Every structure is written in C-alpha cells, then in structure tokens.
C-alpha cells in the first residue's frame, strides 16, 4: 500500500493560523484568540499588500505572481489528495484493471510531485511561513472510491479544471521563469486529462472531446482564477474556507 503523504504544519505561528482557518471547533474560543498578535488578520481593509496569508480568519491566496503560484499550489493539493485516496483505497486493486491502476498511480505520483514543487517554490520566495498556504482539508462526501465511474469522472473533472486553470492563469504571470514552469506542468495535466478521458470512453474522440476543445478553433479551455475557484467550490470537496480577492 502506498504511503499517504501527510502535510506537516511546521511552526507554532502557522499552526495557530491553520487551526483558525481549518474550521475545527475548539472548546473555549479563548484558546483560539490567545496568542494572536495585534497585527495578525488584518482583513482587506487593514493591509494593503497582496501577500498570501490569513485575512479575517480565512487564508487569502494573495495576488501577483505569488498569488498565482499559491493558487496552483491549492489546486495541486486537491489533485494530490484525491489520487492519494484513490490509490490507497481498499478496493483499488479490484475496482481498476492493470492499465487503469498504472495510469492512476502515475497521476498520483505526478500530482504529489507538483504539490511538493509548489510548496518548495513558494517557500523559497516568501518571507514568513504564514504566507504559505497550509494543508487544505478535503472531504469527498458520498463519492465512492470503489466505484470506477465515479472515480474516473471526478478525475476527469479535476484534470480538465487544472488545464483550464493553468491556461487561464498564464497571462497573469509576470516572471518569465514562472510562466515556463507553469507551462511545463499544464501539458502534463492535459496528458492526464486525455488519458482519463480515453479510459472513460476508449476508441472515441473523447480523449480531446468537443466538450473541452472547440471544434472551430481547436482550443482548450482557459478560465480565470475566479471562475475556477467558483467551479471547484461547487464540488464541495475543499472544506477549508479560503479567499482569492486579489486574483482576477
């Protein structure tokens, strides 16, 4: 069985923020409020910078290049978590055939790498740990990980969304190196999407179907961060509240 990747929250400061935004109810609100510094948690009115960080009790992804990186990190956290659950599912071996298992294990590998990459990249540029998006909490509700169709259609949604997100975010990146890095990842996500789509509908045009590629121009989807966040929120998988007030 594969080792489940566990996100460790590293510092006391960030742990406090994590607890506040994770929705965990703690007995005694005083415990949560104790230790808050007065300049913490300014909200959109009190702090003019667009750094990622907690504002009014919720983590905001931030703006500019760092906001886009944080946004990508959030999406990769989602995908990595999903595939972690898939490959660690009790029925993984019987729900999926050998080819499917290989594909899903590769997707698990890739998304975990992507997630860890963004975590490292962001950590390398932020000035304090509380600017790093913490490990988000996920809940898949009634999704059955032993139901092949449910898993593959969810995977398709996540991959299609990831492609649209990267395609739509590119124009908001101002540092060429970051654009190239995003470019290196989005094509892999598109390869994923194609593979999942062909597992769902083999031998058809679905691998690059008319539902995600326009027939007249041959273009894949591109959605703005706000559009993607709306779509992802509608899945009701991410339980940690967050905002993206500085992203278009």
């Amino acid at each position, binding site marked *: 069985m*594969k*080792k489940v*990747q566990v996100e460790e929250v590293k510092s006391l400061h960030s742990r406090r923020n994590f607890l506040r935004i994770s929705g965990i109810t703690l007995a005694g609100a005083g415990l949560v409020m104790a230790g808050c510094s007065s300049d913490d948690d300014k909200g959109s009115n009190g702090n003019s910078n667009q750094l990622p960080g907690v504002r009014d009790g919720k983590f905001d992804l931030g703006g500019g290049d760092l906001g886009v990186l944080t946004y990508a990190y959030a999406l990769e956290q989602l995908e990595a978590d999903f595939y972690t659950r898939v490959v660690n599912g009790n029925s993984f071996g019987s729900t999926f055939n050998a080819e499917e298992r*290989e594909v899903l294990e*590769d997707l698990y*590998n*890739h998304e*975990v*790498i*992507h997630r*860890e*990459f963004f975590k*490292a*990249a962001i950590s*390398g540029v932020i000035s304090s740990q509380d600017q790093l998006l913490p490990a988000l909490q996920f809940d898949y509700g009634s999704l059955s990980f032993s139901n092949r169709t449910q898993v593959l259609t969810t995977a398709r949604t996540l991959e299609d969304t990831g*492609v649209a997100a*990267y*395609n*739509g975010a*590119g*124009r908001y*990146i*101002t540092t*060429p*190196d970051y*654009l*190239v*890095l995003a*470019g*290196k*990842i*989005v*094509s*892999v*996500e*598109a*390869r*994923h*999407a*194609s*593979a999942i*789509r*062909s597992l769902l509908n*083999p*031998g*058809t*045009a679905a*691998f*690059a*179907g008319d539902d995600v*590629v*326009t*027939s*007249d*121009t*041959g*273009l*894949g*989807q*591109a959605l703005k961060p706000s559009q993607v966040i709306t779509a992802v929120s509608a899945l009701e998988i991410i339980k940690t509240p967050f905002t993206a007030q500085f992203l278009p």
Partner: protein
Amino acid sequence: MNILKFIESFTNEGMINSLSAKGSRRDSLSQFQNMGKVAAVAAVPLGLAAFLAPNKVNAKNTMFFGPTETPTEALQLALTLEYLEDEFYDMALSSPGLLTGTDRTIIAQISKHENAHVALLANALGANAPAKPTFDFTADGAFDPFNDLETFFALAQAFEDTGVRAYKGQAANLISNGDLLTTALQIHSVEAMHASQVRRLRGQKGWIVGSDRGGLPAAAQAVYTGEEVTNQAGFNTATVSGIPAQAGPESFDEPITGATATSIASLFIVG
C-alpha cells in the same frame, strides 16, 4: 524563398536586429504596416485582432527583451509546425485502408484540431503567414508512414510531442501579449492531449518517460533529449518522499528552442 532558410531565420538574431532601425527587439510585424496589408481579422479572437491593429505597436509591445523570437516569429514557427501536422493527418486519412475504425475516429479528431489551428494562426498572422511548405513525410525514403500503420503512429507521436515542447519553448516570447499567450496555451494543451492519446495507442504511457523515445527511430531522439531533467528551479523532482524517481521527469514537460523544433521539422520539409 528557400523555406528552410526562412524557418531557420526564426532564431537568427542578426535578422531580428536588422528589421529594426534602432536595433531594439521591436516586433517585426510593425515593418509590414506601411504595406497596408494587414489581413481582415474578423474571424480571429478579439485579442489577436487588437494585436494586429496598427496603433497597437507601442512601448509595451516593443519591450521584448530576453527571448530571441518576437511574438510574430513565435506564431510563424507554430504555424509551420501546424502545417506539418495538418498535412500529415490529411494525407493519412486520405490513404486508402490505412486508418479504420477507432484509429480513424481518433485521428479524425486530431486532424480537425490541426486544421483549425492552421486556420487560426494563418488568420492571425495575415500577411506575415509563411506559405505552407512542401512536405516529404518519408524523410527522403527513411519512412513509409502512409503504407505502414506502425510508422504512421510513430511519426504522429514524434510530431505531437515536438509540438508540445515547441509551443512551450515559445510561451515566454508571448508574455508581452496576454491574448496571444492564452491562445498559444490553449493550443498547447490540446497538442498535449493528442500526444497522450497517440502515445497510449502505441502502448506507451501518455507522458514522456525521461529521454526515452519510446521505440521511435534514432532520428527522433532530438524530440526527447532534455526530458530527463529532474531539477525544476532548484527542486529535485526525483527525490520526493515515497514517489518513484522516474515520476519526476514524467511530471514536467520540457521546452525546446525554435532551432531544435526547426531542425526536427526540417527532416520532413523539402521546399
């Protein structure tokens, strides 16, 4: 004009500098404006049409330092590669008995997209669109793609993976124009979907595995060289805890330069 020299000029900095009186990296499109031949752009996405409008050449568009290709040149390279793919698939679909059943369904969908890409890019470039080259998909007798299905799929894989890497290599050249960049990204992701499907039809993984050319002939190694890298901005993709090392290079696709893309395409261009 010798099409090979024209294509090779994409990365010729001497030509780029010669186009501009002041030696700055001004977009070569501006050189054509006095000719009054900017093509009708009604069918082009709004951002591209605005880019081609004469009054759009301003300080922002001329501040294009670093990458060697201008946006126009990036699109010209893209169009050349799209011509290649489009012609390749059209010829395959017209070859009696070559593509049948599900193969045909899949390649027809790819062909539809490449056709659309040619139209979009040719329209966007207007007077700056290079003419379609004359192709020889046998590469002077080395291959027989329209009589041998296995060879057809091998070349298809090479073309699609090359296309993905080539578009990626041009992305930074388009950073000055959000609409063009977005359009290029939207084409790029579709090429990646094509590549994944063709690879999987050949029994390969949908993603590139290190520098492995997946059973393609040695001449195609250039398509995959460089894909083995594991250092991404200082992060080692091959040493993530619990994840196989091989997954590192798989999880990132690498760009290729205009020069490399040109040399690969040139194998199949005769005029």
